[in-house]
């Protein structure tokens, strides 16, 4: 039996186990929507903007580990996905985006709603495809899902000309794929792993630097085993939060620009850095020449291009972290690092994360209370800015996939749609979106999804009336010249949520917070808590741009 391209797409999605798609219809993708209309096994969520669709697919993928799917029409629909694709690319999130395209005969003529989306997205996708013949559609879709999830995951875009969606062919979903140009290395080189074990044996002041790769590779338990067996302290990047329990005494929390003082001191003083699934972003290294200046570096990553990209590595290991760590754990001996851990303990005691815990409702206090009331078990989805850093600092993550945040791209507006995606992916879990008044207004139209689908999650809005992180930089580095950072004209967020038909609570005093949180988490519905916090609260500590990470402001 012959099927149309649109039917083939939907059949392929079913074969890939897709149960939810986020998207917005439009002219060039209507044949696909027409088929989805009568397909009961795939839920389509109509976001109010395609960026929301891409972020929701991203949040879904991060929360579940599965591939997220989004769908948009040609032209503006496709370009609206771009930020979401770049966001997923920088944080290695597997999503597949399908876009409508004008008919093949019209391509290149500047037809209505035509853009060359493959050209536009070539540097922010792992791969992209324009399907020119319906006969190649099934294979391309299979390849797209494969490429999105294997090796270092990432976004893939498939562009579907309208005539290809309508054209018919015999459908057969290929069992096997021939992808010649993409063969990730999974097993680390055994010699390198042995060398790494020897270095760990000799090290006096070793530290583990765990990144998002640990979570992607589902290697948290292997990481825990390594740390506990060798008594090596663990610091994580923003993307690595949750890969190692922060409640454990070996945890140093997050390092970097807004990292804990003790993590930054420890990595600066270490003689061995065991870097696992990290990419040495400038936000964690600070001044490159000073980073880990005394240390030998072991770097494990599945992407060979990350090794040696920013810092030179002594023992590179290309492979899947879970597999490499299993072997490494067998090769290392039990160790104790009494003096080193004693030193770290002193740093922790002398320089803890701290804020002014007075009578004022401060953002750090809010995050601490959210941690308490959720018992550290919620999936925290953040936006980007000060609230994101406070969420990283004052909530203690113990499980992977419980901290979802835009790390590499730093996309304001990510939080709400990503939380929606996470909630669709994990309906049984408690989801909390922590946002700022700036970020929230960049995609607040997606409130409609939360209402329409009766999603029960809580938004904590850290409302300081500013683009707070930029304002902080202006305060510290631009002589307090607050150029265009005051968000005057913002709506009354309580009324806004009420207009959408939801519940919202305003909190401006410290003593109001706990009752509000209690109410929010006991109601089985969407609730936003609008927390009015001081305008000029800063994220502390901070490593000034260009400085070494041990040179923090806000540390005695």
């Amino acid at each position, binding site marked *: 039996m012959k099927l149309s391209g649109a039917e083939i797409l939907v059949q392929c999605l079913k074969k890939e186990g897709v149960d939810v798609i986020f998207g917005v219809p439009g002219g060039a993708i209507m044949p696909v929507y027409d088929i989805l209309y009568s397909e009961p096994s795939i839920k389509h969520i109509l976001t109010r903007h395609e960026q929301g669709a891409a972020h929701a697919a991203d949040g879904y993928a991060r929360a579940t580990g599965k591939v997220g799917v989004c769908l948009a029409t040609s032209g503006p629909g496709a370009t609206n996905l771009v930020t979401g694709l770049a966001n997923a690319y920088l944080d290695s999130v597997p999503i597949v985006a399908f876009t409508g395209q004008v008919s093949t005969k019209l391509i290149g003529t500047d037809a209505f709603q035509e853009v060359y989306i*493959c*050209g536009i997205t*070539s*540097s922010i996708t*792992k*791969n992209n495809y*324009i399907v020119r013949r319906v006969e190649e559609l099934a294979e391309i879709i299979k390849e797209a899902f494969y*490429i999105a999830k294997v090796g270092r995951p990432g976004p893939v875009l498939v562009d579907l000309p309208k005539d290809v969606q309508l054209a018919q062919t015999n459908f057969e979903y290929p069992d096997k794929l021939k*992808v*010649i*140009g*993409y063969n990730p*290395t999974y097993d680390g080189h055994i010699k390198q792993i042995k060398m790494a074990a020897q270095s760990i044996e000799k090290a006096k002041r070793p530290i583990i630097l765990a990144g998002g790769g640990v979570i992607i590779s589902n290697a948290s338990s292997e990481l825990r085993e390594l740390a506990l067996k060798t008594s090596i302290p663990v610091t994580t990047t923003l993307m690595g939060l949750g890969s190692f329990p922060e409640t454990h005494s070996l945890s140093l929390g997050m390092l970097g620009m807004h990292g804990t003082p003790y993590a930054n001191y420890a990595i600066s003083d270490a003689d061995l850095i065991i870097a696992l699934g990290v990419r040495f972003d400038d936000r964690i290294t600070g001044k490159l020449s000073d980073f880990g200046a005394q240390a030998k570096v072991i770097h494990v990553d599945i*992407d*060979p*291009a990350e090794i*040696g*990209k920013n810092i030179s590595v002594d023992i590179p290991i290309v492979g899947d972290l879970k597999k490499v760590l299993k072997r490494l754990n067998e090769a290392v001996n039990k160790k104790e690092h009494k003096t080193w851990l004693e030193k770290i303990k002193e740093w922790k005691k002398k320089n803890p994360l701290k804020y002014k815990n007075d009578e004022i409702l401060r953002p750090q206090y809010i995050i601490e209370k959210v941690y308490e009331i959720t018992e550290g078990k919620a999936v925290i989805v953040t936006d980007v800015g000060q609230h994101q850093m406070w969420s990283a600092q004052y909530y203690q993550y113990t499980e992977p996939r419980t901290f979802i945040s835009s790390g590499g791209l730093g996309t304001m507006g990510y939080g709400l749609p990503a939380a929606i995606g996470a909630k669709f992916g994990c309906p049984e879990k408690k989801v909390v979106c922590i946002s700022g008044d700036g970020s929230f207004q960049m995609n607040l139209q997606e409130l409609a999804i939360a209402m329409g689908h009766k999603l029960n999650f809580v938004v904590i809005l850290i409302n300081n009336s500013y683009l707070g992180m930029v304002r902080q930089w202006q305060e510290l580095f631009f002589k307090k010249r607050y150029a265009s950072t005051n968000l005057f004209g913002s709506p009354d967020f309580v009324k806004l949520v009420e207009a959408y038909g939801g519940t919202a609570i305003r909190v401006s005093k410290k003593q109001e917070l706990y009752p509000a949180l209690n109410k929010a988490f006991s109601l089985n519905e969407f609730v936003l808590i609008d927390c009015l916090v001081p305008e000029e609260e800063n994220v502390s500590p901070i490593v000034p741009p260009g400085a070494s990470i041990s040179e923090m402001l806000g540390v005695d």
Partner: protein
Amino acid sequence: MRHTIAVLVKDYPGILAKVASLFTRRGFNIESLAVGHTEENGVSRMTIVVEGDEKVLEQITKQLNKLVDVFKVRDLQAQSSVERELALIKVSTNSLPVQSEVIQLVDIFRAKIVDVNNQIMTIETTGVEDKVNALIELLRPFGIKEVVRTGKIALSRGSKDIFTLKKTGE
């Protein structure tokens, strides 16, 4: 330092732009790029000459390898590969003495005259880059009207092919 990289890619519209944009985005500078079909159906081969130290070469190789449509990437060492470039040079030759001088140079360089009239001669030459440069320099005084060069293409010497050469960046 200059490096010659051979890249086998999937042959389809858009691959050239994909590879070229990777170089631009990562800040690598392409000195020359030649592309054409290979012995295998559906596979094209690019010969890319880039300037950069070992670290740059390593990153280029690794980043190229990440592209799904790139099948093989090899760094070709000058001493162990055959390198050629083809150039067409249009020279003003409006008097007999000039014509005979140019013909002599063409002979010395084992080049070919592929088009001629009273005013110009078009010379075809192949060889390593230095040879092509030398001929162009010697012809310059007569008045070069136009030059077109293919950019370098290269193959490894001996029985090894691109699939068996030592991999770099993997």
